[in-house]
């Protein structure tokens, strides 16, 4: 396995009213190829800022970020824009779809911006919408779609350029319980297909699909551990139901 993302000693400080706040405080992180990692912690713990630093949406004050075999923390805005488009798929809580474009146009947009020929971009987009079971909504504008469908389209968009890594920031934050289960099923499929995934969330259901969990508190990573224990199904079942009175 090789590292897709490697961060060393990352620091990011924001100015606040009283004193500067260290949102990310000397964080080290390695994301291996094909791995799904969740970052969990209370709001304000720095997990979204960490995702922004790793995805080039913000710049660190100190530390080093490598994407694949390339050091990227010092890249210019223009270089980052190209790199993000080519190598990183983002999924956000608020979907961030372009309201004036249909579902399929939203999905193919990042491919067109990368110079993929129109016909191929359209085919790739349609394939993805089919794979994510939302192809029948391809011609609809986002405001005609349910929350769960919008997030499916957003995931398709994140995948269209076959990114090195998909980064999701609270992807279930705006969804009801049913749609949450639906989107998490989708992420679990991506995980099983060995798509490298970084998931930032305070939702336990979302965090628990990961292979590995990072816990953050006050800008620092305070715990790292594996979640996939390979528990036999009988034990899961036994822990689930208490059939009580006839045992």
């Amino acid at each position, binding site marked *: 396995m090789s590292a897709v993302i490697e961060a060393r000693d990352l620091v990011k400080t924001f100015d606040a009213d009283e004193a500067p706040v260290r949102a990310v405080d000397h964080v080290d992180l390695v994301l291996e190829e094909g791995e799904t990692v969740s970052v969990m912690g209370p709001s304000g713990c720095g997990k979204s800022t960490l995702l922004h630093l790793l995805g080039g949406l913000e710049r660190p004050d100190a530390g080093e970020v490598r994407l694949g075999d390339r050091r990227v923390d010092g890249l210019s805005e223009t270089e980052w824009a190209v790199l993000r488009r080519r190598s990183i798929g983002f999924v956000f809580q608020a979907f961030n779809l372009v309201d004036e474009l249909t579902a399929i146009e939203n999905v193919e947009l990042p491919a067109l911006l990368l110079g993929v020929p129109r016909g191929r971009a359209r085919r790739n987009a349609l394939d993805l919408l089919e794979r994510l079971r939302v192809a029948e909504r391809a011609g609809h504008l986002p405001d005609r779609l349910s929350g769960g469908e919008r997030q499916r389209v957003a995931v398709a968009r994140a995948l269209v350029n076959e990114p090195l890594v998909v980064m999701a920031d609270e992807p279930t934050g705006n969804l009801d319980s049913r749609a949450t289960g639906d989107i998490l099923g989708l992420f679990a499929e991506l995980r099983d297909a060995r798509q490298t995934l970084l998931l930032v969330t305070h939702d336990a*259901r979302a965090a*628990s*699909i990961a292979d590995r969990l990072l816990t953050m508190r006050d800008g620092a990573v305070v715990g790292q551990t594996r979640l996939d224990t390979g528990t036999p199904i009988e034990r899961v079942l036994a822990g689930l139901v208490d059939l009580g009175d006839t045992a």
Partner: protein
Amino acid sequence: MQEAILALLAKEPAHGYELRRRLEAALGPAGGALNPGHVYVTLSRLERSGLVREDGRPGLGAHRSRDRHVYELTPAGRERVETWLNDVTWAKVAPVEFHLKLVAAAATGLADPAALVDAQRLELLRRLRDLQELGRAEEEGSTGSLLIEGAALRLQADVRWLEACERHWIEEESR
């Protein structure tokens, strides 16, 4: 469990194996936790309590095994089902034991409350992961998957409560 079996019999008399099959269907993936003897043991208890009786029809095969008995509700059994359906009893929800564990850890200094919270959260997340894997194998929108969703939502709420515990005990510590 006793009441659930009574309720299944309220529709029509049934064999033990038929009751087991219907119960498994209702439980979905959780039905796998039902052991084969469960239903029969329950039926004999219910029979002793006068809530069900064999309906007197002869068994279907040459050997009258316990599987072949057809059971029906007695009037007392039917009354019990009606009471059960309208009863609003609910499992006690306060996580008292873990709460007292944190209080004890802080008071004695024998363990760090925040570390206990971390360990507990990890355990719940692992269960949640297993549970969701189980749920994914189910057909979407099935009755059985609804039970898995209920279990997952409860674990999720427990994890949120652990976050509140974490905040509280970290603040206590710094006081």
